[in-house]
């Protein structure tokens, strides 16, 4: 066990830190769920690309830097330390990107990965359907194969929902039922499509904070070339599961994010320590310890992955741990702020610019999205412990 960074890793950290110091916007950007904020976040992706910091774990061929997981962790630490903007390209970097690399054809990789890395094409995901929710296999949206003028197409019909980034993004990916006779997880295909196609209607969903962080997407005879299918026809479920695995897995929530929150919580605590109860003191300490534990666990997992290990249902453990940690930290912050907790980001008297209230609302989604924690607990019980279904 070797828990010191190598000289090379330290140098990498310095390089990241210097670059971020020079480039991170001094003022926080507006929310990426607003039209203005979205474009400013896209600009930030392009700035990252200019320094080749956009998709550092990707191979250089696709616009990446070929970093290993330890370098990725170092990068993330510096990124959160610098309070750099949220990644509007997240669906691309962590979800579709790795999926394309594993399942895409050479043409698809060349077509989609470089503009994704450059911030020129921002991706939305479109997994869920109105009556699916945690039951991801309850997909009804159809992709009917037709031939027109010698060209094969899928014609999309149906509806998706909870599509993050869809309101402002350029492209989207999702699974559709290509075999009308099939049910559950059979007969589904993974399809990539631009969001400005004829027949697509996007209805923004206002989330808790009032911004349209999600959207419903309606498909009315939307024609997509068959070349936009990822993997084989009918294999969509397996690919989607791999993608969802990336989502729940190591890279969706880097420890630095929670360590940054814990650090700010300690700071918030210290600012009014004398008026706070033992419960809050205990919670703040536990936040610090758990954020550290999450960090240890991530390095531990990353080290095993570098040694050739695979990440399995442990991803479900991660999901539960970080989502509960995040909710608890923000709940604690709310209780520290007392009568000031209600002030929104629009109120100049809001503590820390209203970020705790905003973060609390976001943290409440943590145990719900990307497979609810109840589903994750089922997965752990069945796959890690071998309990019967």
């Amino acid at each position, binding site marked *: 066990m070797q828990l010191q960074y190598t000289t090379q890793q330290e140098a990498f950290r310095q390089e990241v830190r210097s670059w971020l110091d020079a480039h991170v916007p001094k003022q926080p950007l507006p929310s990426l769920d607003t039209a203005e904020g979205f474009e400013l976040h896209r600009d930030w992706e392009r700035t990252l690309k200019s320094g080749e910091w956009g998709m550092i774990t990707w191979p250089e061929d696709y616009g990446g830097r070929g970093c290993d997981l330890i370098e990725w962790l170092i990068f993330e630490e510096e990124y959160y330390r610098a309070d750099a903007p949220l990644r509007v390209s997240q669906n691309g970097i962590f979800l579709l990107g790795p999926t394309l690399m594993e399942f895409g054809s050479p043409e698809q990789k060349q077509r989609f990965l470089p503009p994704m890395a450059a911030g020129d094409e921002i991706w939305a995901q479109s997994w*869920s359907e109105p*009556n*699916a*929710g*945690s*039951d991801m296999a*309850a997909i009804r949206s159809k992709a009917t194969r037709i031939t027109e003028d010698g060209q094969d197409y899928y014609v999309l019909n149906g509806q998706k*929902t*909870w599509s993050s980034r869809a309101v402002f993004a350029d492209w989207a990916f999702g699974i559709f039922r290509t075999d009308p006779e099939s049910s559950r997880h059979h007969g589904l295909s993974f399809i990539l499509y631009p969001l400005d196609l004829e027949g697509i209607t996007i209805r923004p*969903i*206002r*989330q*808790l904070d*009032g911004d349209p962080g*999600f959207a419903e997407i309606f498909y009315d005879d939307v024609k997509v070339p068959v070349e936009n299918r990822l993997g084989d026809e009918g294999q969509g479920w397996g690919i989607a599961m791999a993608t969802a695995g990336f989502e729940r897995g190591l890279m969706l929530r880097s420890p630095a994010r929670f360590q940054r929150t814990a650090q700010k919580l300690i700071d918030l605590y210290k600012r009014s320590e004398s*008026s*706070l*109860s*033992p*419960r*809050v003191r205990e919670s703040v300490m536990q936040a610090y310890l758990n954020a550290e534990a999450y960090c240890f666990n991530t390095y531990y997992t990353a080290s095993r992955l570098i040694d050739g290990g695979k990440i399995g249902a442990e991803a479900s453990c991660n999901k539960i741990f970080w989502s509960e940690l995040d*909710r608890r930290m923000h*709940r604690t912050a*709310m*209780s*520290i*702020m*007392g*009568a*000031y*907790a*209600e*002030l*929104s980001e*629009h*109120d100049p*008297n*809001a503590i820390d610019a209203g970020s705790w*209230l905003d973060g*609390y*609302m976001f943290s*409440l*989604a943590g*145990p*719900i*999205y990307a497979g*609810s*924690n*109840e589903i994750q*607990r089922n997965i752990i019980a069945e796959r890690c412990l071998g309990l019967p279904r």
Partner: protein
Amino acid sequence: MKFSHTQDQLDLRDAARDYLRGSCTSEALRTLVENNETSLGNWQELAELGLLGYLAAEEQGGLAMSVDGFVLLAEEAGYVALPEPLLEVAGIALPVLSALKTDATNTLVENICAGGQRLMVSHPLNPNLNQLDVADSVLLLQDDGAYLMSATECDLRPADSIDPLRNIQSIKAHPVEKHQLVGKDKVATLDELARQHGALITAAELLGLSAGMINMATEYAKERKQFGNPIGSYQAVKHHLSNAFVALEFARPVIYRAASAVSQNEATAALSVSHAKIAAIDVATLAAETAIQIHGGMGYTFEVDLHLWMKRVWAISGLWGDRNYHAQRVDQALFADSLATGPATTFS
């Protein structure tokens, strides 16, 4: 020894419930939010139901009911997420003002009961107040005395609450001698009256909000299907909701006990109220987190009603002393003062 409400109290609660559930519907609230409004415009109806004058003496135009019954109304107001400042005016400002019993204040009390005047209490514990801008007058409780000013004489600064149905302002006021109701020597009694009523009524409102959220989540769990069954048939969902329900059942008598202590002016009323506020904050926080978890992604949207209730919880939990403030009072009593604990000390 009788730990239950009188039939009069229950009857009035039922009347208020019928009225509030019939008029302050979630459709009505959504319309307000869409139109950027925060009032149902039903103040006169609240007066006619006797809710405004519930705590005032009969000769003041009130019903002469006690605060241990008023908490039932506060629960109902919370249950429907009523946006009107009914509780602030009738549950907090009015009993404080009534205690003065001068001719001038009696007249004002009568006016409040009839719905003709709105009075709000401004207190250092609360940095912002709801709908101060539509109050007629403000009762300022300061270290150096209690003052009554018309709202237009005060400097109100708009603040921004996460709760779209709360139109809050902070206040700066410079009262002069003509505004003074009582001086430094007598303000402590009024101040304690305001703190106790404020925290107690807020606790009861939180209780009602919790009941409302648990009910919403339960109804959702009965209708929403996943994997072919209503999600409410799954043990995980059942147990989440059961835990919130148990917390609610055990918080309710804590609030009732505090209400009785306040109405009887018991020596330990402040401690009882602190317990009530702590219990209410805890159950409301749990109920909100449970309800959104049961609602899944839907709970995270403006499309379901839940968010209005959750935001109200976050907004009012810190009013009239936050959890830390009340926990410190219990801490002091338990570990520093010589509070008697154990069996046979509870009601003695």
